[in-house]
């Protein structure tokens, strides 16, 4: 059992490997984050979740997303003027980088950014920066999907996320988990006919067509991989989810959908 205080409130936990962020949130104490996702390992890149941890005479500023709760008696502050200043600066940085992104704008005004003091990132005229480099897409691809189809490339101010050599990655299974976790909408997915396009990765995925209704629904090349990974049924690439449900219901033999009448079969 470890007992700590957060913003003066005493909190006890016997959960091993719990982080400060998890503990604070479980107690209803809000700490802003950008690169954190509960399905992924802590990354510590956005630095919005910084808190002040005091143990004995020393106070240090740490990222709460990864800070393990294991020292008894520490006192944690989550919203001091210093921390507010840091978060405000970080949002100013992000706003200068992605001035057109609503989510960044909202976060910035929520954390007290009132004026634009920093020059916007210079890009060719018709482009705007949409990526905040939180790395959620890279990490979900690696940690959850088990593929590493995309990665960070270059460093410092030139850092960006890309598929290898900016061309279609052989490892991409077209699952669009990257699109799903992206907080800014920078990863765009379009479907047309039996093709799926994931725009920032220059990736085109062929979809399989449902044998019953004819719609295109699942990435062809992900077949066995996702089936094994997610425990999907063997026929999942033959029928679209709706038709599969229908067939399942029919074979289970409880309902007759065609007649819309409920008939119990023997």
């Amino acid at each position: 059992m470890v007992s700590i205080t957060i913003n003066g409130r005493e909190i006890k936990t016997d959960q091993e490997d719990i982080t400060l962020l998890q503990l604070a949130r479980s107690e209803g104490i809000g700490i802003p984050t950008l690169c954190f996702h509960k399905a992924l390992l802590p990354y510590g890149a956005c630095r919005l979740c910084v808190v002040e941890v005091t143990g004995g005479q020393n106070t240090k500023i740490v990222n709460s997303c990864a800070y393990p709760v294991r020292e008894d008696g520490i006192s944690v502050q989550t919203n001091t003027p210093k921390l507010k200043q840091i978060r405000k600066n970080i949002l100013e940085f992000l706003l200068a980088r992605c001035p057109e992104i609503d989510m960044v704008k909202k976060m910035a005004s929520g954390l007290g950014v009132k004026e634009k003091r920093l020059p916007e990132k210079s890009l060719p005229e018709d482009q705007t920066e949409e990526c905040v480099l939180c790395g959620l897409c890279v990490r979900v691809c690696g940690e959850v999907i088990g593929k590493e189809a995309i990665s960070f490339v270059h460093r410092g101010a030139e850092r960006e996320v890309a598929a290898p050599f900016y061309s279609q990655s052989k490892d991409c299974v077209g699952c669009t988990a990257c699109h799903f976790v992206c907080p800014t909408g920078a990863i765009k997915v379009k479907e047309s006919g039996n093709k799926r396009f994931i725009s920032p990765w220059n990736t085109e995925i062929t979809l399989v067509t449902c044998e019953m209704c004819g719609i295109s629904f699942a990435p062809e090349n992900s077949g066995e991989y996702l089936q094994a990974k997610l425990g999907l049924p063997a026929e999942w690439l033959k029928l679209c989810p709706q038709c599969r449900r229908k067939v399942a219901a029919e074979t289970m033999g409880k309902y007759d959908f065609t007649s819309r009448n409920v008939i119990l079969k023997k």
Partner: protein
Amino acid sequence: MMKMTSPAELEKYRSSILEGIDSGRPSVSVCCGTGCSASGALEVVSAFERLLEEKGIQANINTKITGCHGFCEQGPLVLLSPGNRLYCKVTEEDVDDIIEETLLANRVVERLLFVDPVTGEKIEKEEEIPFYKKQLRLIFGDNGKMVPTDIRDYLSLGGYSALAKVLKGMGPQEVIQEIKNSRLRGRGGAGFPTGLKWESCDKAEGDIKYVICNADEGDPGCFQDRSLLEGNPHLVLEGMIIGAYSVGASQGYIYVRNEYPLAVKNFSTALEQAREMGLLGENILGSDFSFNIKVVRGGGAFVCGESSALITSIEGRIGEPRYKFVHAAEKGLWDRPTVLNNVKTWAAVPLIINRGAEWFSEIGTEQSKGTMIFSLTGKVNNTGLVEVPMGISLRELIFEIGGGILEGRKFKAVQTGGPSGGCIPEGLLNLPLDFEKLAEVGSMVGSGGMIVMDETTCMVDVAKYFLSFTQEESCGKCVPCREGGEHMLKILERITRGEGEERDLELLKEISDTMQCASLCALGKLAPNPVLTTLKYFPEEYLAHIKDKKCSAGVCKELIEYLIDPEACTGCGRCLKACPTGAISGEKEAVHILDQEQCIKCGNCMEVCRFDAVSVE
């Protein structure tokens, strides 16, 4: 080479080497370190080899190609014994004289002696040259005495006696205690007590443990790790073996920059020789301790010198830092307990074991023990690598060892600790050099960089330069370092262009604070140091750039003008010819005129003028 199966056997072998050395035989040591090689030391070596053979006396004279002697300014250096005579700036053409005069007739070749820039006096012996006199060359001293690729040279100087001592009768705990008692602190920059690090790794649970040598030295102007690995690789290796023994590690890694091919080569040779002799590998010196080392070459990222990024890089992933709430000593390489130390830290270990913790802890200051190797560079007379006891003052280092400022100009500041360190002004020259004192004034010991600046250096430009370096090398993972650094650099660029505003200074301080407090790793946390220290100690220079649009050092091109003094100009035409844009006009022997519109401020005119007629404002 024979495999040694016990410490006693090693000592016997050492005696046989020592017996074979004819101490009366003249020897020539040519420094072939980085600096000397660049100024032609390899040609000097081949001249020696050729001429000694031609004269048929190669058997009588011992020629050694050694690592860096430290006094790079005066290279190529040739050290002759008996007599410990040092010849400076030796060229191929001098070799014949050295052989005929000094080696054969025992006479001094006057023109090759070091001339004291202060007194004008010629100095014959190495140890009497002021550059060396004030140094305490414990770690670095043997560099000039041995051929780094010959393990017998290292053995003849007492090499591997510390390892033998440890294996003969010291338990791992005893070794750790000895290192703790010595109060050695990590030489990579942070100054963490080495003994404590080893202790926590020793106590950490795990069947497999690692030791790593950080040789990813990347600070501009720093080359002490390189020189040690090139010049005395066995010393570092011996330290690592002892460290591995004490924490129970079976595998070690040395992470060395790929840009250091000779360091990689010499260290790899040392590994092979040590393996052949049974000093590395299975059952070292017949004991049940087994340990091996692999060389990992870095991919060229400065940030990989940061411990967590270095470990990630060894693991084969992108070398980016991780948060470190659990120390590497507990969970490091592949999540196993790992001791990671700098080259210089490892190199200090054999000395401490041989001469005792008490001896070591008597050197230095209360908090910082032992010696530190600094690379003294910039606008100072004697540039090179210097090893001094901790606690020596900046003044002694720069004005006595360093011989003062170039061309008698005025000292302005010294940047310590590499690009992440701070600039220290003249008022703090009496500051004793140790971990705490340097941190107090906003700088750090860091990797031991020491760049001296004089009145011709613009402090805003310096801050901009160092920040552009750290910005270029930022991995970009965390927001404060990636974005904050870029914004600071933009502001500094604006100021040096004369487009700065006074509120920029406040913004610089604010962003610096956020970077220091919130960056993920030390690169981002320390990157604002040059900006903050120059803002603190040289605020007037920033204000001059912003308000008066003036750069008093004459560095920032947008803020300066070159002027030709009509009184002093003789119309010789030198500047006219040197000007790349044709901005200077004028008849021969008539006053020349500089057209400011066409001038690109390259400064060629000022450089070539023999009459000091060109000035900068």
